[in-house]
């Protein structure tokens, strides 16, 4: 599953909800939390429920950011977005202010109950844990491995910085540790690592720099708060022509070696081993050039 760009869409804005699927993001996050005023939580929930049913999202992942487990809203959010009235419903729930495995367990249990009620398979709806507190970052690996529903860790730098007493900067030194920690925990748990959004809408230059930093660190994709950012972040998280060409070369050499019954082989004078093959296949996968069966790559 590609999660290069995960675009937030305010849950109480019909115009933006409707246009969501055409904006080019790999995933849409219908937001019931920060983007919705307290007095509109009920209305937004109904609107998102109906949008989930009506919108043709194609291959775009449908994520809903519910309200946190410390609010009176989250349980009704879960019920609404899994219910029959939501059609195919949410594919993924983004759980904000997730700090401990207990937070995940609470929501996972509620999801199971609602899945049963709606006649959906148990465990069908996946979870993304939004880590945005010091405790959440410290518990990253435990959160990532506490439920088979957890499909990724998602860094939320704004709330985290507040919790840390740190100052947010364009260059992000203050969250360097958190970024590293999230990537390492996610990779150890074999789930996705999603980088925090860049929040200055019109600063496209620094957006690109910020996205590149995340990609170099090993993130699989980035949250996006403006449709304007989708194009740039998609590009940053897509393999370049050079990378694709390199990966194609490795694959061809590997196929030759397999056909000839050779174990080890070299490309351009360098020995190719397991991790290099894996990296090449991952590039081809992101570029949409992978034949799953022929290339023998399983989704991890």
């Amino acid at each position, binding site marked *: 599953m590609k999660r290069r760009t995960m675009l937030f869409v305010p849950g109480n804005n019909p115009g933006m909800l409707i246009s969501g699927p055409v*904006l*080019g993001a790999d995933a849409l996050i219908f937001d019931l939390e920060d983007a919705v005023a307290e007095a509109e939580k009920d209305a937004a929930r109904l609107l998102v429920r109906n949008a989930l049913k009506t919108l*043709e999202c194609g291959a775009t992942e449908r994520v809903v950011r519910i309200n946190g487990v410390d609010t009176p809203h989250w349980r009704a959010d879960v019920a609404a977005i899994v219910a029959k009235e939501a059609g195919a419903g949410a594919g993924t729930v983004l759980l904000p202010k997730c700090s401990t495995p207990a937070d995940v367990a609470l929501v996972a249990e509620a999801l199971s109950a609602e899945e049963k009620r709606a006649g959906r398979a148990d465990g069908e709806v996946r979870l993304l844990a939004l880590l945005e507190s010091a405790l959440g970052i410290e518990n990253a690996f435990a959160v990532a491995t506490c439920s088979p529903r957890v499909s990724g860790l998602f860094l939320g730098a704004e709330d985290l910085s507040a919790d840390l007493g740190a100052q947010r900067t364009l260059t992000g030194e203050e969250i360097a540790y958190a970024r590293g920690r999230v990537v390492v925990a996610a990779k150890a748990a074999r789930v996705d690592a999603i980088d925090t959004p860049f929040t200055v809408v019109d600063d496209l230059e620094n957006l690109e720099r910020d996205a590149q930093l995340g990609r170099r660190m090993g993130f699989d994709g980035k949250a996006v708060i403006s449709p*304007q950012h989708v*194009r740039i972040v998609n590009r940053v998280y897509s393999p370049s022509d050079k990378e694709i060409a390199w990966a194609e070369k490795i694959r061809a050499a590997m196929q030759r070696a397999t056909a000839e019954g050779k174990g080890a082989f070299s490309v351009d004078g360098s020995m190719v081993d397991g991790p290099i093959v894996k990296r090449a296949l991952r590039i081809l996968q992101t570029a949409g050039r992978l034949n799953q069966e022929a290339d023998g790559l399983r989704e991890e």
Partner: protein
Amino acid sequence: MREKTAATLRQAMEAAHLEDGMTISFHHHLRNGDFVLDMVLREAEAMGLKGLRVAASSVFPCHGRLARAAERGVVAGLDTNYMSGPVAAAVARGAFAEPVRFRTHGGRPRAIDAGELHIDAAFIAAPAVDPLGNLSGVEGPSACGSLGYAMADAAHADTVIAVTDHFLDHSPERISIDHGQVDVVVKVDRIGDPAGIVSGTTKVTRDPVGLVIAEYAARAIEAAGLLRDGFCFQTGAGGASLAAASFVRERMREQGVRGRFLLGGITGYFVDMLEEGLFEDIYDVQCFDLAAVRSIRENAHHHEISASDYASVGRKRCYVDDLGAVLLGATEIDLDFNVNVHTDSNGVIIGGSGGHSDAAAGAEMAIIVAPLLRARLPIVVDRVRTVSTPGRTVDALVTEYGAAVNPARPELAQRLRDFGLPVFEIAELRRKALAMAGEPVRAPQGEREVAVVEYRDGTIIDRIMA
């Protein structure tokens, strides 16, 4: 010069020997800031004239007096390429004794050149007049740049009256209309309101859906193989068109393509592309902003052209014929790719062809850009309410969901697909829209003919009922 200056507008009009039923003409370079049309009509009413025909290249919301003059019988007929505001409403009410004749920006000068549209007196709003009586659009408090739409009037009207608010003591950088064509010059306080003449700044849209459409449109142009040296390009001045232009600009830069010319109504955005060296020339029939006015005054590669040279089929060749791509809007497009830019879904007149059908006919690739739904109304309809631009001249529709290509151009559809663009049958786009919005009830049509739509070659292609 001295002997042909009239002291007052009244004197100038008397010199033209105006009579009931005559045709008086106006250009629309002062756009929604024009004072001249209303000023002349007020005087005509005071002179007791009746049943005049107004041939104005376009009519804007500032022209409320024209609606009143129609209601009082001062004006009986209107011949125009575009209208919006109170006059459009008056047409629907049947205020004009005769059906309005809609033409195109190229069709109007063709009809004037051919003698089909005879003008008894042309009132030419002139931002500046030099000591010889030459008219210029690039100086004075009401500077508007090009005077391209007034040129056929100046060449053929029985009497040409220049109305100005600015006399020069020198020759201007650019002479738009030669003094040899001008019979009378009259100075008034103000010919226009600069705030309504040029929009000041034109900005690329921020609407995310508009940006998606724009990017698809730019990619469609690239997919069609048009982005090569010598490329000629035209778009409207709206934010979405500018966004598409910005994506085209990006691609041209990346690929080192140098285009031949930009055409039509010109904005600062086009001027930037000229100055950046992405295009050799601008051929300008109309300036939309101050940056365009400055450029046409100062840049020798920014040329003023007449509406005839721009788009008239009466010429052996006109500039639209060289266009590689043009981006155009629509209120509706039907399954045969016919486009309506005259009326909205309630049948109310909201515009007119302007240069729409001219550019579509000339361009190698005419692209209609529009969202799939506009306020719950599907853009694709079974049959357009008014045919402004015939479907045979339209190559593709681009929406935020992807493109539909005219079935007459299967090779173009294939190119777009090969380029990775989503391509649909136009009927499929309609079905998609209906699935989201439901089927709208068609607004009933009136029984009185209030306007006819004349195509650029002079044939009547539709009638508007109210």
